[in-house]
């Protein structure tokens, strides 16, 4: 699991690569700390290279989304593969996020 955060224009973009399983989610939570500190910029979670996500990963996404809602910026998802779309739809997350 590899996470990279870049500021592109006025957006924070997090690139998530590999498998976001429970163990990885613990690690990812630390690496994505800037996203939780951010209070102004719209955020994009780029999942193009994300292969897998467990409930821990979903909870992480939900926390970021709740932070955005609290501070009044958007959180967008980008590049979900079809398997992940199924998981997102199954849990109702697909309708919570803005999908690019």
């Amino acid at each position, binding site marked *: 699991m590899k996470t990279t955060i870049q500021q592109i224009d006025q957006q924070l973009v997090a690139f998530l690569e590999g*498998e976001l399983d429970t*163990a990885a989610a613990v690690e990812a939570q630390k690496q994505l700390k800037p996203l939780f500190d951010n209070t102004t910029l719209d955020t994009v979670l780029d999942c193009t290279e994300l292969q897998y996500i*467990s*409930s821990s990963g979903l909870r992480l996404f939900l926390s970021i*989304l709740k932070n955005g809602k609290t501070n009044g910026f958007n959180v967008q998802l980008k590049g979900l593969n079809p398997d992940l779309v199924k998981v997102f739809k199954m*849990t*109702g997350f697909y309708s*919570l996020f803005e999908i690019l």
Partner: protein
Amino acid sequence: MKNKTKSSVDHQTLQSRYNLAMIIFTALILIGVFLYTYNIAQTGLERAVEGRSKGELRSQCLDLENKLNMIEALVSNYAREVKDDLNDPDELFNNHKQFLEENTDIEGCFMAFIPDYFPQKGRWFECYAVRRDGNRIETQQMGSAQHDYTQMEFYTTPMRTGKPVWCEPYHDDDGAHMMLTTYSMPIKDDSGRMVAVLAVDISLDWLSTYLNSDLRYKSSYLMLLSREGRLLAYPDTLLLNDKTVQELDNKKRDPKVNEMNQRMMAGESGMVRVKAENGEKALVIFKPVDNETGWSMAIVCREKEVYGDLYHVGNVLIMLMLGALAALALMLWYATRSVNKLEAANNEKRRIDGELAIAANIQMGMLPTKLNKTHDNIQVHAALVPAKEVGGDLFDFYIRNEKLFFCVGDVSGKGVPASLLMAVTRSLFRSLSMHESNPTRIITTMNQTMVETNEANMFVTLFAGVIDLPTGEMRFCNAGHTPPVFIHDGQASFMEISANLPLGVFADFTYKGQQLTLTDNDAIVIYTDGVTEAFNSLHEQFGEQRTLDEMQKIEGLAPLPSPAQQIEHLIHEVQQFSGDNMQSDDISILALRYVRPLDEVVLQNKIVLPADIQQVGRLNEWVDDVTSRLGADEEAAMNLRLAVEEAVVNVMNYAYKNEKNSDGTPVQGIVEVQAIADKHEVVFTVIDSGSPFDPTAIPDVDPTLPVEERPIGGLGIFLMRQLTDSINYKRVGEQNVTRLRKKYSN
């Protein structure tokens, strides 16, 4: 036991005393009523008798007075005739003879002259005519020294007083030779000197007959008493003589009779009750005859005859009374016996009730509470909620030769007969199914046996089934029982049931069997009509639709309910529905859930990991390895990886959370995951030794909630359910065992 007998004896003695008191009391009342009635009747009758007797006496008195007046008048007229013959004594005989011929009531007639009146006839001359033997009339001269009439009353009294007189009765020994009374009057010659007395004899026989000839009432008679107390008239003429009643007195006579005689002689009127010498009682009313005679007449009413009817009625009343008392005694005896019987029956009933309670416990003890052996492919549970009265519900289930045998039945009626038949039915099922695996044949044989021995015309509805546990093939036969609820693919419906008669109706009835194949997680709920026919306060039935709805409702709840939970839910709903209405029938429910086993195992593997989420990577690699070896498609592989990860992470996060070593450090737990698969399905089993933890008991998240309301947790179990076909959890010994099952290919 000794005390019981004693108290029973005391009770009987008390009862007998009560009965005796009752009879005596009733007898006293009856006697009182009898005496009162009798008294009133007697008084009434007395008054009537008195009244009519007084009337009778008055009229008879009057009649006698008339008769005497007539005789006096005759004598008076005749006296004028004989005055012309005072000088011709011989002619007087002819006159007398003629007089007697003309007046048949008169017995004799004579004329006695003062001594030496006819010197040629001697000192005494009494010319006498008398009736003999009917109408022949004899005449003779009676006066002589032996028959010195100048000393006799008929002569002395008129001569002394110058007035006529009725003489005391006497027996005429010389003339008529019978009892007579004589009326005599003085005869004067032209110078006014008393020269003779003219007299007529009246026979007392005739007088008695005359007086008593036309009495209106046969129960009474008349008697006539002279001034000095001699009987002048009496029905029994043999009793007439010239003795006075005083002279006739003897010690035996009722003193009242003497008193009465005195009063009669004194010319009084009155009424007395006397007792005759023969013991007979009589009412006597007397009054003086209203003329110169000084006689007194009495009417005598014999009570025996007067009160004859009253005595008769009295006797009948006494008989009736005795009869009524006897009937009462009989009734009391019978009632006492009945009460004793009833009490004995009550005691017997209490004893039977007590024994029945024990019997009911024994029966409940006969019903299985759990399977005789556990089997991975089946979960069974059954419960019976007994009604107040002993009922006839039954169920049975057990495993033999990899087969589950089960039945649910309901005996018609309630009470002892139903419970006995219930025991018989359950025993029959158990014994027959020991050697026979076809439920239709079991039911057919049960039916034949029960018809043969069914003397009470009772019947039993029974659902019997046999499930082959490895294959899920279920054969069943429904003998008139309510269709069970069948839950397949999460959908509850009533089973299609062939119409068969209940057991115990026709011996040669052909029962139709049915069969179906159970798939994984299919459930069957069999119940008795205690469920559907439970009433609420509005007299509505719980009904089949509610039963079906409730089973559907609990099936929809996560986790998938166990048979025990299904039964608990249904009983709870029925009891809620009934409220305070008393449960009138047994409620019996048997529920089973089938867990289909895998076919031929193509893969078996396992991994043991420390309970640490850093191990999740290893777990996922292992799951990927399993799915790739099975040739699962990409989607199934990912779903399985996600589901297994969620199950294991749950264990890692929660199972050992509160487990501490003796030095206080957290326990490093172990998680074992087994994989087993056939060609189509794979089962992952997660096993840990942590504290009891049922992941299926965690509530589901609602995926439709908006982000603000979405809780952070609860996603794991939700995903597990969504991504697998079934999840089962059970605590086995000290271990939690969670099984995830999923089809990975067709």
